[in-house]
């Protein structure tokens, strides 16, 4: 189908974009990569009165490193995350997960900021923001504020952003030393939204014991699900298969809350979560051990 008509603004600077947002917050929507918004408009599920297109605001497209942290502009394309060599070194979880986001042609347009603000519980990037302890910078005409990824996702397609705020920057700390990672998901076909997926991180101490663990799930609730209790089971211990199995059982049975959909029952999602968690944790531990030497 075709989108309903709308007014269109295409600012060249962030300042102009913020000005437009403060003037038209009630009717305006940001147009980033358009890979979620335009399909919704073509279906007429979304009929915004106005679009403010950020595609010419070049200052929002960057990947910089500073003092152990990445600063990434909200308009950075998913494809640039996938092929950035610094991210591959210092945040390899992101590099591993990027090819699972949709298809190459969609990643050429889709942006980091757009995927985060879209807040689809089945999307990869929101899960990665939680797993990697991201901070998100929101700005409106009167100022800026930083929001922890943990406080950002407020439910299905809902975030902590106010209607006049633009997500402008994402701050990602480098993954700590001796950290192993793994991202795994199961989708009906390559590029489809996954039925279940997990990002696992394991940081070992000097003696090879687990210092910190993280398990974050997609399509497992109405926002990304951070299975903190299950991860805590692993912390302080020398990791073995029995512990990994208990953590996987706890996360898949107690901590996630999947809904099922036309492609999968809830039971099958829990089953997938269990198997994926075991495999992902084993791979993360192996990679962390390789990083010990």
């Amino acid at each position, binding site marked *: 189908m075709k989108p309903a008509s709308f007014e269109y603004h295409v600012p060249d600077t962030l300042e102009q974009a913020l000005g437009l947002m403060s003037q038209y917050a009630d009717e305006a929507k940001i147009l980033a990569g358009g890979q979620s918004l335009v399909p919704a408009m073509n279906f007429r599920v979304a009929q915004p009165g106005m679009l403010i297109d950020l595609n010419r605001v070049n200052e929002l497209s960057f990947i910089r490193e500073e003092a152990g942290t990445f600063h990434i502009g909200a308009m950075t394309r998913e494809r640039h995350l996938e092929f950035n060599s610094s991210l591959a070194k210092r945040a390899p979880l992101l590099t591993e997960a990027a090819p699972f986001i949709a298809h*190459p042609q969609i990643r050429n347009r889709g942006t980091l900021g757009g995927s985060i603000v879209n807040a689809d519980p089945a999307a990869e990037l929101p899960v990665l923001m939680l797993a990697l302890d991201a901070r998100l910078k929101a700005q409106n005409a009167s100022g800026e504020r930083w929001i922890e990824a943990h406080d950002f996702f407020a439910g299905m397609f809902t975030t902590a952003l106010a209607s006049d705020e633009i997500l402008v920057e994402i701050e990602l700390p480098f993954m700590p030393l001796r950290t192993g990672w793994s991202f795994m998901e199961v989708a009906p076909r390559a590029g489809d939204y996954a039925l279940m997926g997990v990002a696992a991180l394991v940081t070992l101490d000097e003696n090879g014991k687990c210092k910190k663990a993280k398990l974050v799930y997609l399509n497992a609730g109405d926002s990304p699900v951070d299975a903190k209790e299950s991860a805590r089971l692993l912390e302080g211990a020398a990791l073995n298969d029995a512990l990994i199995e208990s953590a996987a059982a706890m996360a898949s049975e107690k901590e996630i809350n999947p809904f099922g959909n036309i492609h999968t029952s809830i039971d099958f999602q829990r089953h997938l979560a269990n198997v994926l968690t075991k495999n992902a944790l084993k791979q993360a531990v192996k990679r962390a051990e390789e990083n010990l030497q």
Partner: protein
Amino acid sequence: MTRSFPVTITVNEKEYKREVEPRLLLSDFLRHELGLTGTHVGCEHGVCGACTILFDGESVRSCLIFAIQADGHSIATVEGLAKDKDDLHPIQQAFWEAHGLQCGYCTPGILMTLVPFLKQNPNPTEAEIRHALSGNLCRCTGYQHIVDAVKLAAEKMR
């Protein structure tokens, strides 16, 4: 009706000046305004890949971009691939020889996906080829001959 805006869009190295309403999709601009019907439209929500074109050299869905966003940009469509009907692009020639199409509906989108892919990856593995094509649906071939055609094209272009 909303206002129309003037745009200048380069398509297959030719410059076009038109007035467009903001809601006009780039796919419809190409097909209806310029008569370039080689770009096909299957789903209009990003799933099928039939409408894939090059936007400043990168493969994208033309059904998920508004024509007005292409103002000042350079577009390439399947019509720009062959110099002449007897002088096909090597990827087209390989599809011809390896039977990489049946009805041909998916073919323009697949070709436009492959142009940048084979440039960046001149010696792809079968797994890489299948990943590159994961965003293009074909209801006829079962993909096997498409994959064969991509391998043949890569050989021709090396």
